[in-house]
């Protein structure tokens, strides 16, 4: 007979029976066996696994001391030698959802153990942690507890046994963001027609691409005092010095670059070129100022309409750029621009 899997259950202060909001600062603690909803979890796991311990931590403590808290929680979990960790379910509770996601991520990365949690699909924990943990969808309140546990338990058993996890639509977890190609039974055209019929007849269907929830970026306040401002020229059009000395790629660029332009009154075709591979860059190569309007900026400088142009061009190639890398470039450029004392950016894209 297979050995029983060892499961550790993570709960917040409320579900762990310590207290309500008044105990949200409770430090990580461990109790033997299942606690609160863990009893239902154990029932659903049946003979295949044992909830050997429950680790409980206050939601405030975890979010306000995240590194230390996760270290403590991981230590308590590791001491139990589990095969799999189950966190929550968190339903719609935001801090709890984020905590469950963070604990699962930490368990996977630091302890190299599988982990699963469950929460309402709009819980902020989902977008933050979907790539780092298996998250099953749950209702928005604990009314759904029995339904969720009935799904969490078999999923935990699957993970604990090291079984392969199939696609999200079959296995019932929220897509992690990873996509894989495969050949199936029906053509794309047939699936399009069937999905449309499902929609028209109000039958449930699952889109093969789930739309993300992108952050709302609040624009910076309107500029005033432009005559004193330092303006930086930043571009993703792929304008670089002739010869592309730093060998930036025409697509999927792995770098962004900074080139001195303080000594220049214009971007001449003799000195600059364009290497972006996603559009016909011939016109930019004929006159790089179509992408980087240095000549006009110099006029504005001379007329006193802007303070000064930053003596560096920030440039990269935007073609087929993975979003995560673009985010990283944005953060790095922003940090560098701030250090350069820039007030505003003239940003050209193609």
């Amino acid at each position: 007979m297979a050995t029983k899997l060892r499961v550790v259950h993570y709960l917040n202060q409320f579900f762990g029976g310590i207290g309500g909001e008044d105990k949200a600062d409770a430090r990580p603690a461990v109790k033997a066996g299942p606690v609160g909803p863990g009893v239902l979890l154990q029932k659903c796991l049946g003979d295949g696994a044992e909830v050997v311990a429950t680790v409980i931590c206050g939601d405030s403590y975890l979010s306000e001391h995240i590194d230390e808290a996760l270290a403590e929680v991981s230590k308590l979990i590791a001491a139990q030698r589990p095969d799999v960790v189950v966190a929550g379910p968190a339903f719609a509770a935001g801090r709890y959802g984020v905590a469950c996601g963070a604990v699962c991520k930490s368990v996977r990365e630091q302890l190299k153990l599988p982990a699963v949690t469950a929460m309402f699909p709009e819980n902020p924990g989902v977008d933050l942690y979907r790539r780092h943990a298996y998250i099953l969808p749950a209702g928005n309140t604990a009314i759904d507890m029995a339904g969720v546990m009935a799904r969490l338990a078999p999923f935990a058993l699957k993970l604990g046994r090291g079984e392969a996890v199939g696609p999200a639509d079959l296995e019932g977890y929220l897509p992690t963001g990873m996509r894989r190609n495969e050949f199936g039974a029906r053509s794309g055209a047939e699936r399009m027609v069937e999905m449309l019929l499902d929609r028209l007849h109000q039958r449930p269907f699952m889109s093969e691409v789930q739309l993300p929830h992108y952050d709302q970026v609040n624009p910076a306040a309107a500029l005033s005092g432009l005559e004193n401002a330092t303006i930086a020229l930043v571009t993703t059009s792929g304008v670089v010095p002739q010869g592309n000395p730093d060998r930036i790629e025409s697509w999927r660029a792995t770098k962004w670059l900074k080139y001195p332009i303080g000594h220049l009154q214009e971007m001449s075709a003799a000195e600059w070129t364009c290497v972006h591979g996603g559009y016909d860059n011939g016109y930019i190569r004929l006159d790089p100022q179509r992408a980087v309007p240095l000549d006009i900026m110099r006029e504005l400088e001379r007329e006193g309409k802007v303070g000064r142009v930053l003596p560096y061009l920030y440039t990269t190639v935007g073609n087929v750029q993975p979003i995560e890398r673009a985010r990283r470039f944005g953060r790095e450029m922003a940090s560098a621009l701030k250090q350069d004392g820039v007030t505003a950016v003239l940003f050209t894209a193609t």
Partner: protein
Amino acid sequence: MRLEMATFRVTQIAFGATTALRNGVLTIDRAAVAAMALGDSNLTGVAVELAVPGESTRIIHVIDAIEPRYKPAGSTFPWFISPPDLVGSGVTHRLEGMAVIAAGDIPGAADSQGLKEAIIDMSGPGALYSPFSAMCNVVLQFSFAPDVHKPDATAACRKATMRVARYLAEATRDLKPDAVDDYELGKADASLPRVVYIMPTMSEGELHTTFLYGMSVTSTPALVHPNEVLDSALISADYWIACHRSPTHHYQNEPVIRALYKRHGKDLNFVGVILGRSLIPSAIEKHRQAVQIAKVAKMLNAQGAVITMSNGGHAYADQMLICQHVEQAGIATVLGVDEYSDTDGSDFPLVTYVPEATAIVSVGNQEQIIQMPAVSRVLGGERFLAGNDYEVGFQKRPEEAFPVGLRQLYASTCQLGYTTHRGRAY
């Protein structure tokens, strides 16, 4: 309009003294095909080769793939080699299981915006990604005058390929078909949902476009009968990124049209096809098109719409704007897309989207890399086209083994949904 599509199955092809079809074997008069393919000063030569399933053959520089078709009465390939009369009714003969593949390196056309490399492997791992690997193909490898005007070159090779496609199908003139399918939009119960098929097709400019009865599809939508698409009125002239080109063959056998036809009168009422333009170069024209397409769909009293797309980059914006306007007109949509999910599948698949795009079918991630093996024979050219130097594999010779993205495999993620290839969320 009633189209009687007479299918003649081809299971083998071989060169022979005359062109004839007997028991599924098509023998081909090679010299006659070569002579027919010339006759235009832009073409300096054509090599006629055969590529059949299982061979260690790689076809490169693929320009288009056309299914042999012949109409005993009426226009075969209207405009190009016959008058632009209305097609989509009467009898059409088709050779199933084969394609005429045009290939060739057009001088001066290989830059980042010119013809892109497009590869078909007849065996091995790459073959999985192309329906042509399971077909008997006549490959026409064209050579062009060195200073040829590129659109003239592609026009010449297009007409030549069509002449050959018609010539081969004419071998069935006096034969009995293996099957006949009737395509007719008969009366459908009023209670069935009315569904329209919206097809934005690549139309970026002179070199990359889609022809409807010989003229480029525009952003003022064209209402067509699905039979016209099935009867070769829609011709691909998209020579850009290989994976999401729609070969003419796939228009002649358009899969969404066939899937809607299967359900017509049973689950839905297929009311028509609206053609639009993909890769519109200005925001204002994109907006205009979306408004016009939604208007036509509404005039058809559509309740649902399938919306595919063609090509990539801001082509997603064309599709998504159409989706948004059609949804706002009260019509439920499903979109067919391909993905840019990075080589490991970790990136969000779409270039852009609208919140109304809640029902999406994916034909797969074009950025996946596969290992192509060495092959014994290469057709279509001697070196990879220079305009694809972002692909590391293209430093190699085409007969060698190399890694390549699905991106460069011909029609591997064609958004019409012809194959079962798909992207799945994990």
